[in-house]
């Protein structure tokens, strides 16, 4: 065998190896397959405008799913992200419109709300020793209720015009929310793959007792992942508020489930310890492509939910058989 051929086969072997072993392979194959199907179903699917549109639609859930990935990697879950996002957006809008606060401070307030509630979740889970699913379920109700109390149940509109830049602005042809989302993913990748903190996140999901007994401060790490989840919820709130140009206390109902679906479709183990942030991005886009394609095909929205549910089940089943 010639040298070149050897390199070629080893490269081919590497590609095959990657396909068989990388946790990203399966989500990526899924995304490609679904995209091709959608391309057949609708002529408009593979246009630049539509693809950018899909990414823009994905951005809110995509951002929520970043924080969710951190939490799920430690073996936890955060059901409160949709409600926290709504509360953060409502408070930011209220401060700007009703209190006349400068817009920058309003957005900072949104971030503080998300971070603060995330820290409360984390403290209750890490030091209160309560199950994450219960803590964040309660927080979901509390945050939703607080938003409705604060706004009286009505959307708060009349925001300064520049806020819309976060939701519908563009840099060149690329929508601003897409750029925000990609920057957040890049930061998350650095945190997870390049820092000790990221390694500790995986370690806790892999074996919390072992991590703890070897001297990892597991409580702090768990606190941090919920804080990150709260923070990404409030970043999503800024994008959403910019798109809607109002603070909507009823926004984001059920978004926590979409975020979880994105994480799981992206190949992250629901029990923690295994998964990649890039997988979550693929998972979120996959969900967006499904939504978009089913809309383009003109399928009844109720039916769309059923189809999405079935596809998630199928994906998990294949993912399990794959390994």
């Amino acid at each position, binding site marked *: 065998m010639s040298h070149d051929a050897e390199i070629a086969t080893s490269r081919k072997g590497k590609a095959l190896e990657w396909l068989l072993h990388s946790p990203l392979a399966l989500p990526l194959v899924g995304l490609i397959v679904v995209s091709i199907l959608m391309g057949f179903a609708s002529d408009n699917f593979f246009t630049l405008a539509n693809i950018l549109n899909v990414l823009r639609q994905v951005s809110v859930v995509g951002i929520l799913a970043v924080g969710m990935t951190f939490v799920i990697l430690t073996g936890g879950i955060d059901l409160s992200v949709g409600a926290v996002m709504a509360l953060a957006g409502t408070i930011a809008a209220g401060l700007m419109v009703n209190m006349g606060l400068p817009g920058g401070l309003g957005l900072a307030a949104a971030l503080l709300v998300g971070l603060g509630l995330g820290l409360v979740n984390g403290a209750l889970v890490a030091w209160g020793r309560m199950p994450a699913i219960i803590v964040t379920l309660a927080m979901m109700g509390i945050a939703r209720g607080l938003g409705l109390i604060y706004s009286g149940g009505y959307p708060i509109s009349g925001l300064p015009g520049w806020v819309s830049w976060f939701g519908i602005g563009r840099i060149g042809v690329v929508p601003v929310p897409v750029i925000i989302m990609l920057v957040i993913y890049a930061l998350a990748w*650095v945190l997870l793959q*390049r*820092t*000790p903190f990221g*390694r*500790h996140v*995986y*370690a806790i999901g*892999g*074996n919390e*007792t*072992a*991590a*703890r*007994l*070897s*001297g*990892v*401060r597991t409580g702090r790490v768990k606190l941090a992942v919920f804080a990150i989840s709260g923070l990404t919820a409030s970043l999503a709130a800024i994008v959403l508020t910019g798109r809607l140009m109002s603070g909507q206390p009823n926004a984001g109902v059920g978004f926590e489930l979409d975020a979880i679906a994105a994480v799981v479709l992206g190949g992250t183990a629901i029990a923690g*310890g*295994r998964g990649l942030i890039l997988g979550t991005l693929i998972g979120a886009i996959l969900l967006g492509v499904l939504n978009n394609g089913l809309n383009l095909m003109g399928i009844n929205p109720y039916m769309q939910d059923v189809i999405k549910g079935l596809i998630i089940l199928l994906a998990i089943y294949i993912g399990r058989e794959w390994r």
Partner: protein
Amino acid sequence: MLELRGIRKSFGRIEVLHGVDLHVRAGEVHALLGENGAGKSTLMKIVSGIIQPSSGTILIDGQERSFPTYDDAIQAGIGIVFQEFSLIPYLTAVENMFLAREIRNGLGLLDRRAMRERARQILKRLEVDIPLDIPIARLSVAEQQFVEIAKALSLDARILVLDEPTATLTPSETAHLFKVMRELRAAGVALVFISHHLDEIFEICDRITVLRDGEYVGDCDVAQVDTDSLVEMMVGRRIENSFPPKPTPDPDAATVLQVSRLQLRRGGPISAFDLRAGEILGFAGLVGSGRTETVLSMLGEYGAASCQLAIDGVPTRLRDAADALAQGIGLLPESRKEQGLITEFSILQNISLNNYGKYAQGHWFIDFRKERDCTRTAMQQVRVKAQGPHARVDTLSGGNQQKVVIARWLNHDMRVLIFDEPTRGIDVGAKAEIYQLMRDFTAQGYAIIMISSELPEVIGMSDRVCVFRQGGIVATVEGDAITSERIMTHATTGKVDHVA
């Protein structure tokens, strides 16, 4: 009534029972005796059909029988009360006793009155008064045990096995259990009693069968033996040469760690010990005697009633293992898979788990080159045999996995290493290497606490030995006094001072 002949059992290629005999007669209490890991529990699992023997015969009333399942054994009149109860904590005593054998009425619904009546009769026979309508979880351990016994009797058990029933009982509860056992004996039930406490054996048993390392040592009447001869039957005369030579103790060695008062449970015994630089302090005792809980308490990882310790003479309180690491104390836990390793991580990631402070550039990013180099060095130091630092730890042998856990601590400024069962599940060659490593560490000035359930290991490695029994240290021996007879005697019959 029950007779076993030449029972052998292998797991994979390892034979754990090498032809064991057991002969239990009706109306006797028969003790099954042996060290941790001698094969008692395995033998009882064979009797109850939970696992199958590789060869050998089981006879009941002289007839050869085999039990493919637990249910078959129950049908044959065998009842077992396991160390860990098989009761459902949220169900009541009655519901537990009739689980999967519920009495039904004509409509196919539960006949609660009939079950309650039957339960009451059985418990009355045992002369125990147990509330029938509250969840088992709210009963005391002793009461739960009686429910287990009652359950076995409700199945008409004629052969009753009690696997270490007294391990968690108070003396008065034990006395009551013995009373019940005597009544059952008088009623013609054959009882097999597993216990490590020799004084109990002399109190309640009629005959004894001794196992050692899966071998049948012999059987005898209780009246014919004394403590010394029993201990000798249990430990035998074993010589192991794989231990590195012990250095002469340095009388001036500084005390690194001093535990002045450690009480695991309120009302339980109080332990105290100190640890000197350069020594290996063995923690010997039976399984469940409180050794692991004691070291976890020191690290703040177990809720002891009280724990006072001083490091280099300075009173200190450690809140968790991270605090302990900051003070130079590291633990190599008992179970590598459950407490030691992140099995999905590579060797490198496992070793560097608590080392990132050293590999992080500006405390933020991992310096991958430095991480790899340090890992390589650490792997060489403890001689991990693997493809490279990126191999997954779950592909390694037990010995190499243990070395990975050890390597994790080498990059720190450590003073105390605590090895909990350092060679469990490790082959002989790797054992010798780990022993040598431990001696290398002490030569460098580390102090080591070694918890071990293997007597030869305790004797071969320890400079001093603390013997545990029932939650506290009952004796500390050193030098030539470290003998298996001495340790076993303390571990099984030591007198504990109970202080409130």
